[in-house]
């Protein structure tokens, strides 16, 4: 079976190599038939990768421990769903997942764009082929999931912290995000290579960018929720390099999603957009590199890691290629329009972009500095949480404010008097919120107070936008309010979907501010019957139980929860001792108050032989808004992504002449 997997990967290497070489030649020479065969090779490479993936899945399901990778990441006792997710439990399988997602995206994106953007697609094919060649090479020559060895009696098992539903879904979404950024990157490079540097590549990839960006966002929230409920240290984000690895491309992609609107509407910022999409893609490569090369723990383990240097080389190639292409096409990328006023929609998008990129680059600096320092100065350093928190506030809070201002400022040139009218109500609501919060005692954290005030401002502007739009539509059509509201959103999906996404980011900001700036924590060692008080709750330790689960021994401490005189039931926290993997994991107890969004979070840190338990208890206000924001985020993204027949028709007429004159010929 392993031979079939290896063969399938070799076929993928051949096909993607053909897509690169033949596709490049076809585009250069203007050979239409050759370009079509290169495109078909790209489609076929998805199928051969699918075969390779199926072989690995089958090996996991059948407990075929002659696959070294299966033996290293699974065991007979592992439940089936975790045998499947063990596919991406290690490096080789993760790379295979990367390749599978890449070839899948490539096939779909090229298929959908083959008619409307044919002249671009001939150049996009070799770029996507080139990326696939790099990854297939790693899988074939450096880090193969199909290496075989004498089969042990049982596998080594899967790391217990990966044995939960989050770790089934989280890596898939992250990779759908990371890899998805390859599509807009390839189209941008295709546009540069073909010399057709108008906004068509943006129109052709808008949905792909949004899908990748949404998936990356969901993946990160799933990871945060996993850290919160499973890792059990009481937080959800620790500025860990691996977490930053996913946040950086997401920030760059967020900037890109905004700035492309300016190019679509006004034809400005062309260089900036290709640079941003290149940055986003290179950061997603860098993210995969960080998580997979061992470079984070030490530069020494990086030099021993087989894929590290290859990956670094790969990133260098991507950066150099993108830079050279942008440089060569600089004259064609010159914009005709220009910024007319510093108070305009364009300008506010520009500020938003600068803030997002600044935040992204400071995080990059913090993440990369330890590596650079160890390599250059020979002295290893650690960049701590205060660094990141500082820059999140410095750049994040103005971004939050801009989210309320930007969408309401007129294109081209806005008058200050008009702005005063538009923002009078939201500003009044924000100030009122701030005053109320100070009276309630929220002044204990200034950044928290600012975040809440800005959040109130943004939510007010969004609510007013929906109300104004609905009212205007009712006045125009005489529809009932609900119909008018539905049609308003349905006819302007990008705009109102965007507002919904903005609302979700505000909810996220409120949740983060609440749980980090206004939380409380108490810890102590309790014997049975003893109590502990925190944030208005009283917890009484009742009993300790021990139970044998399918693959772990579960120890639980049971506590009564009271608030004042009212009993709120019980909560249990403890530890699981995994037998095969010889590891202990914290199982925290969480009681969510869905009305206030507050969590009571109990960790049983240490269970002593005499039955006393050391508890650590957090009260985290509003933390559930973070997870709720995830659902709103998906809703908003779906609204903007939903196929829109009228928009399709509009685009079809707009780019019809382009299709007429489309042919693979190009001038270089």
């Amino acid at each position, binding site marked *: 079976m392993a031979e079939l997997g290896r063969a399938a990967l070799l076929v993928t290497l051949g096909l993607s190599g053909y897509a690169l070489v033949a596709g490049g030649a076809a585009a250069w020479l203007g050979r239409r038939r050759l370009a079509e065969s290169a495109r078909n090779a790209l489609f076929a490479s998805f199928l051969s990768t699918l075969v390779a993936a199926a072989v690995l899945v089958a090996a996991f399901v059948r407990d075929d421990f002659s696959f*070294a990778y299966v033996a*290293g990441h699974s065991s007979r006792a592992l439940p089936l769903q975790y045998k499947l997710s063990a596919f991406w439990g*290690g*490096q080789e399988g993760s790379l295979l997942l990367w390749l599978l997602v890449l070839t899948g995206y490539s096939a779909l994106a090229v298929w959908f764009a083959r008619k409307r953007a044919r002249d671009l697609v001939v150049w996009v094919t070799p770029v996507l082929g080139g990326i696939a060649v790099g990854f297939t090479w790693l899988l074939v020559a450096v*880090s193969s999931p199909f290496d075989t060895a004498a089969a042990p009696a049982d596998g080594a098992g899967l*790391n217990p*912290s990966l044995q939960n539903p989050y770790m089934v879904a989280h890596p898939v979404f992250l990779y759908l995000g990371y890899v998805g950024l390859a599509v807009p990157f390839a189209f941008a490079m295709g546009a540069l290579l073909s010399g057709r540097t108008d906004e068509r590549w943006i129109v052709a990839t808008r949905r792909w960018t949004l899908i990748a960006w949404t998936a990356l966002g969901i993946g990160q929230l799933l990871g945060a929720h996993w850290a919160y409920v499973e890792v059990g*240290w009481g937080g959800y984000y620790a500025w860990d390099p*691996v977490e930053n690895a996913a946040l950086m491309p997401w920030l760059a992609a967020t900037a890109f999603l905004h700035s492309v609107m300016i190019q679509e509407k006004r034809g*400005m910022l062309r260089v900036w957009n290709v640079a941003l999409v290149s940055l986003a893609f290179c950061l997603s490569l860098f993210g995969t590199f960080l*998580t*997979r*090369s*061992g470079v*984070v*723990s*030490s530069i*020494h*383990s990086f030099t*021993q*890691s*087989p894929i590290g240097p290859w990956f670094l080389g790969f990133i260098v190639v991507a950066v150099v290629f993108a830079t050279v292409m942008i440089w060569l096409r600089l004259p064609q990328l*010159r914009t005709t329009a*220009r*910024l007319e*006023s*510093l108070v305009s929609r364009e*300008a506010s998008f*520009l*500020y938003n972009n*600068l803030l997002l990129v*600044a935040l992204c680059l*400071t995080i990059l600096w*913090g993440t990369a*500095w*330890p590596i650079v*320092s160890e390599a250059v100065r020979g*002295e*290893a*350093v*650690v*960049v*701590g949480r*205060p*660094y990141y928190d*500082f*820059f999140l506030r*410095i750049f994040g809070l103005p971004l939050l404010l801009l989210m309320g201002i930007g969408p309401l400022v007129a294109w081209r040139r806005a008058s200050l008097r008009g702005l005063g009218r538009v923002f009078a109500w939201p500003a009044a609501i924000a100030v009122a919120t701030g005053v109320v919060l100070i009276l309630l005692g929220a002044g204990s954290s200034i950044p928290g107070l600012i975040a809440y005030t800005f959040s109130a401002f943004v939510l007010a502007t969004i609510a007013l936008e929906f109300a104004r739009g609905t009212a205007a539509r009712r006045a125009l059509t005489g529809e009932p309010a609900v119909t008018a509201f539905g049609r308003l959103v349905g006819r302007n999906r990008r705009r109102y979907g965007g507002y919904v996404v903005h609302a979700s980011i505000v909810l996220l900001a409120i949740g983060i501010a609440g749980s980090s700036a206004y939380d409380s924590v108490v*810890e102590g*060692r309790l014997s049975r019957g003893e109590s502990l008080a925190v944030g208005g709750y009283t917890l009484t330790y009742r009993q300790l139980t021990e139970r044998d689960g399918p693959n772990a021994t579960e120890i639980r401490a049971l506590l009564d929860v009271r608030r004042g005189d009212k009993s709120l039931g019980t909560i249990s926290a403890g*530890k699981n001792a995994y037998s095969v993997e010889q*590891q*202990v*994991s*914290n199982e925290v107890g969480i009681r969510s108050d869905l009305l206030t969004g507050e969590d009571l979070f109990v*960790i049983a*840190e*240490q269970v002593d032989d005499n039955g006393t338990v*050391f508890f*650590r208890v957090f009260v985290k206000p509003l933390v559930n808004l973070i997870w709720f924001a995830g659902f709103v985020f998906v809703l908003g993204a779906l609204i903007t992504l939903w196929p829109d027949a009228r928009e399709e028709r509009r685009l079809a007429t707009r780019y019809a002449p382009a299709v007429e004159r489309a042919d693979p010929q190009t001038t270089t």
Partner: protein
Amino acid sequence: MARTSSPARLVIALSVAAVLAVFLVYTSLAGNARPSVSPSELAGKTGEVSLAGKVVGTPTGDPHGAGMRFVLRDIEGAKKQQVTVLYKGSVPDLFRTGRDVVVTGAQHADGTFVTTPGSMITKCPSKYQAADSNA
């Protein structure tokens, strides 16, 4: 055809300057990085550092009482230097003999490395795939 009058250029230039200024002020005031050392590099280092090492022997004592004591040695290389660490606070699930951990603190005159409470991080094998776990 540079158009120096474009406000976009001005905005970008001013923003870049502002960001750089904030960055420089912050790094010079707060100091953005702690040195990270191994047990064999610890000698002579004063002030707060991150100490990364491999746990050897059996940890003793109560991390939530008087403190837990354990011994760290270099993760890589043949160096024999060992450091006794006094640790208080949360102990991560992955902590045990043979694992690689990072703690923050400073070395006292008696040679004991006294940590900032709760500063222990284990190098998580699921996230960072180091060379030796590639088998």
